[in-house]
């Protein structure tokens, strides 16, 4: 799937540029993309380092354990593969909480930590496990309570009520989230 999608994007892009007689667009776009990706990764160094440090304090003070215990039934239901008490639970919950609160920049480090813990449970090292797929389904479609960035942008453009899209956004994410969970369930059942 990914091979076709990736190859398809590159080939269609090349064809579009050739059609317009502007082949030089391609190399420029590729190198700009590569630079953007490396900048993004380096930008993540500071964020990840900071939040993983804070997360360790949360773990040692017992906050993560309390959160995991409180949400254990939900984790058991969504991630039957994770043994009870495994550190993956806490990282998943912190990631989802940060996502729902709109704290994207704290969510990423917790999410990467969760992937690391899930990787320890994964027998096939180069292939996504079911738990990883479920986690990413939750992660990319998470319910949004506070879309802070877009509210700020609406204010900048002179909206009379920049926050009036909060409830529609919540409803749209609720619908998307429900569908993602159902889709994940069926893919899992079909023994993908």
């Amino acid at each position: 799937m990914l091979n076709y999608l990736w190859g398809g994007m590159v080939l269609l892009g090349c064809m579009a540029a050739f059609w317009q007689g502007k082949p030089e667009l391609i190399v420029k776009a590729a190198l700009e993309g590569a630079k953007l990706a490396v900048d993004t990764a380096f930008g993540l160094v500071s964020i990840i380092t900071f939040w993983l440090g804070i997360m360790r304090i949360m773990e040692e003070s017992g906050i993560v354990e309390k959160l995991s215990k409180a949400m254990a039934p939900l984790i058991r239901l969504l991630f039957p593969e994770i043994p009870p008490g495994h550190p993956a639970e806490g990282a998943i919950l912190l990631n989802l909480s940060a996502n729902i609160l709109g704290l994207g920049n704290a969510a990423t480090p917790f999410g990467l930590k969760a992937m690391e813990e899930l990787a320890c449970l994964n027998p096939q090292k180069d292939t996504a496990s079911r738990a990883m797929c479920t986690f990413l389904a939750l992660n990319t479609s998470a319910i949004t309570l506070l879309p802070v960035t877009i509210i700020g942008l609406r204010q900048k453009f002179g909206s009379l009520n920049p926050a009036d899209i909060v409830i529609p956004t919540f409803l749209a994410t609720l619908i998307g989230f429900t569908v993602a969970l159902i889709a994940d369930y069926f893919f899992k059942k079909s023994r993908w």
Partner: protein
Amino acid sequence: MIIKLGNWLLPLILFFVIFYGMLKKVEVYESFLEGAKDGFNTAIRTIPYLVGMVVAINIFFESGALKVLASGLNPLLNKLGIPAEVLPHALLRPLSGGAALGVAAKLMEQYGPDSLIGRMVSTMQGSSDTTFYVLALYFGSVGIKKFSYAPYVGLIADFTTFLASVFVVKAFFGT
């Protein structure tokens, strides 16, 4: 009010975590260092995966192929009662958060943030995620090359959220 709440949230969480840690006699500074030491490697490990994904997305977008795809889909949108203006945003959103935000800003400037299109694109931006970036980043950080069914679920969710955004905004603000 909500923006203010957003500003307060992180500092308060940080305060609470350190305060509670000290209350529980955790050696907060040493714990911090212990947790933080893997940050660099985690971020750097993702580079090849992110470069691969972003390069393909950038070629697809900058070459104009995305625009061709969007114009091909317009007749279908008209039938469903979805304004064609919001389609580029919907196609871009799973691929690139920054580019999608740029499109949202342009549409709000052109139509006004309180127009139906302005509200639709706001809701679309707020409700969905940069699915392919997240997949590349998260799987890349642990060296996973085969994504199993994750891209399908991601795309199904993005498509659903797009339709839901359009029709919820219509129901709330439409005439």
